[in-house]
């Protein structure tokens, strides 16, 4: 800005100060998020060629990611904050941000790893191949054959699309799944709030906190989509009218008002806004001269979605039933007979289509009912094991999850202080926790609880930073930036913390191909644990056995005894890098013990080495030639 100096003589001296950059204007610029996103993309793309997956430690993928990847994610998080707090909200900016975040995190393994990850992916490919080839089910081999509709669907799509091999496509399934989740989540969020910034922030938090990794080619990944679609439809189109009295009125009288009074917000609490009004506003905002939605038809769609869920996954239908029952019980939605109808569908499937599994496992299923504390403790305690680095990852996941839940709790309280009770979201976030009292689900129930609650928890967590429409408080912006940056850094660590075991190599895949090309139908395939890229074809033609306990004991003779005890003429022992990584990660087995055990096994006269590569070995043993 030019400034004129006092006249001291005939000539006036003009002093020019450098122009100051207006920081506030810069931060408010619509170009700032785009610039940050562009820089983030460049950093990320240029970092990818430097990822050396084979140098991974027990910290997982993070141990081989260049710092530029994290810098890119941090910039992306800051761009999101700039976009969502900008004076003029531009949905396209944050939509691009969410899309970039999805690609940078969820497509990362597909771009840097040699082969499809997760041993379970290969088993699911095996279900698809076996069902399509044999056109029959084999529940005596695996219980998942009694919930086969996801595998039937995948086989149908593979066949009609003319895809020879599904495996190369599977690394991209998490990215696609999350794009589809976001679609259904967007509908759900429109029912919860009319505030577009809050909705987009919730979407961002959903993708930034989904560390569970169940979005691969799996029935549970497909069922999350069905769950979100059902929740969206019932909350949005079957809402009860605001003012309906019921359990919500009791809650408001007994819990919410006293709680709000403690926060010194009595007057606001007395005017608590019913979330059904928000839903009504969201649906009815643009209603002029609009046709009416066909509710009976939509109800049939809900029943269709639920039936497919019931026929494709063991756990999700129970969570959906619980959620719908809670919504009906608290008079959030109107079709009061819906829980009964859904219960009948579930009961019918279990009674007629899942009888083989139930007959053999009923005691195990009912054993955990009512033991919520034991189930939760086991789910946590059993996971804090393995190498020191792996334990650090597990602790991080626990703290990450607790942090997200605490944010959601804070969001509930902040919304209450502004007079809003998001009961539908609270119910749907809370119902999955009831599963703790029903099933341990093989020690995985806490993971599933986190995942089922996440869409609703993400909304409530977003509300912690933006409890109401209007101007952003600087403290909210600062805390949002801090949390967003933390999540962007921690998500890859939590999500890919097991990657040393989850990833597979070309050499392992080649060995598996050779195994199936050579193994005679009816032979037994022995592995140390499940963590190998096998089972993707001819599931019904082979028996599978594991010698995990014997290897962990360092007892090579016991491994040989197990090979003798199999019920087939020919046995193949399949050893691979991923199995050793699994034992090392989760049981601290060192490579020396592994080598000693299998040196002892290899010395057995009946064992023939039929394949050896950098990452795999295959031994063959024929009964009668095995020696004593």
């Amino acid at each position: 800005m030019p400034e004129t100096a006092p006249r001291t003589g005939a000539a006036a001296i003009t002093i020019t100060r450098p122009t100051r950059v207006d920081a506030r204007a810069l931060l408010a610029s619509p170009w700032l998020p785009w610039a940050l996103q562009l820089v983030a993309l460049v950093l990320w793309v240029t970092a990818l060629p430097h990822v050396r997956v084979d140098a991974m430690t027990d910290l997982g993928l993070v141990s081989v990611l260049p710092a530029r990847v994290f810098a890119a994610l941090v910039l992306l998080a800051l761009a999101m904050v700039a976009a969502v707090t900008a004076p003029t909200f531009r949905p396209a900016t944050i939509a691009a941000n969410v899309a970039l975040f999805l690609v940078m995190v969820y497509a990362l393994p597909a771009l840097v790893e040699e082969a499809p990850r997760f041993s379970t992916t290969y088993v699911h490919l095996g279900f698809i191949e076996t069902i399509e080839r044999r056109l029959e089910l084999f529940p005596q081999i695996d219980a998942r054959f009694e919930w086969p509709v996801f595998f039937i669907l995948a086989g149908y799509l593979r066949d009609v699309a003319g895809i020879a091999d599904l495996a190369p496509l599977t690394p991209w399934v998490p990215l696609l799944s999350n794009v589809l989740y976001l679609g259904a989540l967007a509908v759900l969020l429109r029912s919860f709030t009319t505030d577009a910034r809050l909705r987009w922030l919730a979407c961002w938090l959903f993708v930034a906190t989904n560390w569970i990794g169940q979005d691969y080619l799996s029935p549970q990944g497909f069922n999350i989509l069905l769950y979100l679609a059902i929740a969206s439809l019932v909350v949005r189109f079957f809402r009860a009218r605001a003012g309906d009295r019921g359990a919500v009125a009791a809650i408001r009288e007994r819990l919410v008002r006293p709680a709000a009074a403690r926060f010194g917000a009595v007057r606001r609490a007395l005017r608590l806004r019913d979330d059904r009004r928000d839903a009504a506003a969201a649906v009815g905002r643009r209603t002029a001269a609009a046709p009416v939605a066909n509710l009976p038809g939509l109800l049939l769609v809900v029943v269709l979605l639920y039936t497919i869920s019931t026929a494709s996954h063991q756990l999700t239908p129970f969570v959906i039933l619980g959620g719908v029952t809670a919504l009906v019980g608290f008079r959030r939605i109107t079709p009061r007979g819906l829980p009964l109808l859904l219960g009948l569908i579930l009961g019918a499937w279990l009674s007629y289509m899942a009888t083989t599994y139930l007959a053999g496992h009923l005691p195990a299923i009912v054993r955990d009912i009512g033991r919520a504390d034991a189930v939760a403790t086991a789910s946590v305690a059993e996971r804090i094991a393995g190498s020191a680095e792996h334990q650090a990852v597990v602790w991080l996941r626990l703290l990450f999850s607790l942090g997200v839940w605490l944010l959601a709790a804070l969001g509930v309280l902040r919304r209450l202080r502004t007079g809003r009770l998001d009961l539908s979201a609270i119910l749907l976030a809370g119902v999955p926790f009831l599963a703790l009292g029903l099933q341990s689900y093989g020690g995985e129930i806490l993971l599933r609880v986190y995942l089922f609650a996440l869409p609703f928890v993400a909304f409530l967590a977003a509300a912690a930073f933006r409890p109401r429409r209007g101007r952003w408080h600087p403290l909210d912006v600062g805390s949002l930036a801090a949390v967003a940056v933390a999540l962007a850094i921690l998500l890859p660590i939590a999500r890919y913390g097991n990657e040393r075991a989850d990833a597979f190599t070309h050499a392992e895949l080649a060995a598996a191909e050779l195994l199936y090309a050579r193994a005679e139908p009816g032979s037994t395939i022995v592995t140390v644990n499940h963590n190998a890229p096998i089972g993707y074809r001819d599931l019904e033609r082979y028996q599978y056995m594991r010698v995990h306990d014997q290897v962990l004991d360092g007892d090579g003779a016991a491994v040989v005894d197990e090979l003798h005890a199999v019920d087939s003429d020919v046995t193949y022992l399949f050893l691979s890098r991923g199995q050793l990584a699994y034992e090392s990660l989760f049981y601290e087995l060192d490579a020396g013990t592994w080598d000693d055990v299998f040196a002892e096994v290899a010395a057995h006269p009946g064992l023939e080495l039929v394949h050896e590569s950098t990452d795999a070995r295959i031994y063959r043993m024929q009964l009668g030639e095995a020696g004593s």
Partner: protein
Amino acid sequence: MTVTATRHGQLGLPVAVAACALGVLGLLLAVAGIDGPVRTVAVLAFSVVGPGLTLNRALRLDDATAALLAAPVSLALAAAGAAAAFYAGAWSPVVVYGALVAGALVLLAVDVIRRR
């Protein structure tokens, strides 16, 4: 029991038409036994979007909701068709796919006629 829905937008119909066109293309290629990326993309795009989008529009969901929920509804319809064929002992993916394409075309025609 009725709910007032939002107006249909301008973009939904062209997307539904494009999805159905891809569905028909995929069906022709599948019937002819021509493999390749065109068939894969056409079939998968239709299967994820077409049946659900046309059904949602027929149920008079607003444009955005119909599009956002197209994938789960489409995949559920495909799963129902494939499972029905499997359990009936009449496994024929191309026939199931053809039925879904036909159903989507009928719903699209109803949608177009209703708007005129």
